[in-house]
């Protein structure tokens, strides 16, 4: 099989992942599209490894070794990503990325409301959690 097929496929996969990251509003879907991008890279690596070992350039198969590492890294990342998304959901009640504007540098003097709405939202979530656990 010629090298172009997997290379083109991985490029397509990468672009879909990319589109997913940019367009989707839900954090979980964004995580999934990030995984897509990483898998596209894995595909790329494996394809190049096969192509290179065929022309006996690389007897060490380092492409495949790197793929293993990348898979492990992707796993760790998705672990932490989900934990963070869960925390965001628990704090805000929604995991919608567009709502995340608290740390932005808005022009209006948001210092006053910033302080207290952080407290009152924390109070509301703790109240929810309390009745959730109860």
């Amino acid at each position: 099989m010629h090298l172009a097929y997997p290379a083109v496929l991985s490029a397509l996969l990468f672009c879909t992942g990319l589109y997913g990251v940019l367009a989707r509003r839900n954090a979980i879907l964004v995580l999934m599209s990030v995984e897509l991008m990483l898998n596209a890279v894995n595909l790329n690596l494996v394809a190049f490894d096969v192509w290179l070992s065929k022309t006996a350039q690389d007897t060490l198969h380092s492409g495949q070794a790197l793929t293993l590492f990348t898979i492990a890294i992707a796993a760790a990342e998705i672990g932490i990503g989900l934990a963070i998304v869960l925390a965001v959901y628990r704090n805000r009640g929604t995991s919608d990325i567009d709502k995340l504007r608290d740390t932005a540098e808005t022009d209006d003097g948001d210092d006053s409301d910033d302080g207290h709405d952080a407290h009152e939202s924390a109070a509301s979530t703790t109240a929810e959690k309390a009745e959730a656990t109860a």
Partner: protein
Amino acid sequence: MTTTTLAVLVPLLPFLGAAAGLFLGRTAPGFVRPLAVLPSVLSLALAVLVAVRQGGDQAVDAATELTPTGSVPIELALHIDGFAALVAVLVGVVASCVQIYSTGYLRDDPRYPSYAALVSLFTSAMLLVVYSGDLMVLLVGWEIMGICSYFLVGHYWETPEARAASLKAFLVTKLGDVPFLIGLFALAADAGSFRIRTVLGTVASGGLDHPTLIALLLLAGVAGKSAQFPLHTWLPDAMAGPTPVSALIHAATMVAAGVYFIARLLPVFAASSAALLVLAVMAAVTMAGSALAALAQDDIKRVLAYSTIGQLGYMTGALAVGDRGAAVFHLLSHGAFKALLFLAAGVIIHAAGTNSLATMSRMKDLRARVPDAYWTMTVALLALAAIPPFSGFFSKEAVLGAAEHAATGHAEDIPGAAGWIVLVAGLVTALLTAAYAMRLWLLAFRGHGAEAPDHGRQPLAMNAVLWVLAVPSLAFGLTTGLLPDWFDGHDLTPTLATSVLGTGVALVGGIVTYGAWRHTTALAARVPLGAVAAHPEGDAGLVEAEAIASHAPAYGDVASAPDPADPGRLLLGPLHRHAAVGFHLDAVYAALFVRPVQAGATLVRFLDREVVDAYVRGAGALPRLLGAAVRRAQTGNVQTYVSALLAGTVVLAVAALLVATGA
């Protein structure tokens, strides 16, 4: 004591007197008067001693290096020839007289200590100019004289005229000094030294590249300092200063410094006939113009000021025809009788309480109030009008003789035309001089109307000085025989043709003026005029200040007065209005220099605020705008961040590829 140490002491003593006067002024008022008079008298004595020792033979030369400059070193040098010795004596005489006169004149003026110190400083600066053998040290003395004249003319700084006159005096002389400095640079560059001896040596050996240009540059400075046309406008206004100051600075010494400088460096000017021609024309215009203007002045001191400009014109005329003996001879005699005229005028102003001739002509028996001033003034006026046997006749004839000598082509490498110009102008001016001398005498002493106010005897100091100065005005003519061995040896005795012509013309001038006066004096009674000082019983300085201040409000003009009884008005006819304001030269300068500079100032103010500063403020605003844009880009939406990240990557990759392949 060698002549050199004596010569060094001559300028040093007044300088030390000035310094001591400034420091002790407030603390020990008792010492101030002796500290003012003694140094001048002592330096006069030493100057006489030096003159006698020098005796006209070999010039006294001594030098020590003042400072290395990187190219031409400047030396503290003395170069005393016959001219220097005698002029120094004149300066000493006049300075001592003025100091003594001032003790009486400014008896209870609180500012006397600083005044006396400045006069001593001026005297030492003038003596430095006279004795200095190095051009740069001469320039130092030259400019210190200018600043002393600025401070002294501004002595009555309450009156607006004095404030304006002092600034104008300094700026016009400074305008002359700028080309003067450049001229000195040119001389030093060609001669390789600032020493006058070396410069004269280089000129003799034809080392000057552009003698005409250098001569004209130096001439500008001289015109400024010696109040020659076109830079003479400051001298009449400088009369707003105290009379002793006018007597010392604006009659005998500072204004003579320019003439003395040309006499010292005559070979530089003689090297180019064009320069001599320019000098001759300048002298002629100065002589004639100032004599006409003198006829139209109402203020007694302004008449004398214009007369000084005229007489200086004579001296530059003599130099134009290459005879520096005659020029310095006339300088010496003029110094004496003009100082006397000014001091006498001071006494008269104090007695009459006014400086306006129109007012004086409406007072009877003024001469009885101040007999000393009357007699000495008559002597001086006769000397001024060059009536034999007074000193003025001999010195003026020497000048006219030299002019005639050059005109008839006997003087080698002096253009004949210069001789004729000076001769003709000299004769015309002789006539006009006699005219305004007679006018002044008649208006001042032959006035009739109300009785002149009587303020008692004038202080002894002032009267004594008048008689001291009357002696040279009378007897200086006798020394025509002795002087040549101090000067270059030319014969100074008056030649027959010019003497007869000159005296005749003078007599005609006097008689015509007397006739005109007889005709107009009747009108005086019908038109009452008066510009009288407020406190006539104060000391002379105070009276003079108020007289000056009262002239403009009374007559609407600081120079002339609307007096039909004035013979000058009759003689000049239509010319009177122009002559009174000095032929509108002030208006010309205002248009040529003052207004463009003020326009430039406003332009610079606009440029500085709108253009230069605008760039700086703009440079400050740019980062702020950029900062606002960057902060607005921080929207907080993470997807915009990631899209920016990816867009950045793509742009970077494409740019890198292009640069790598392209470059």
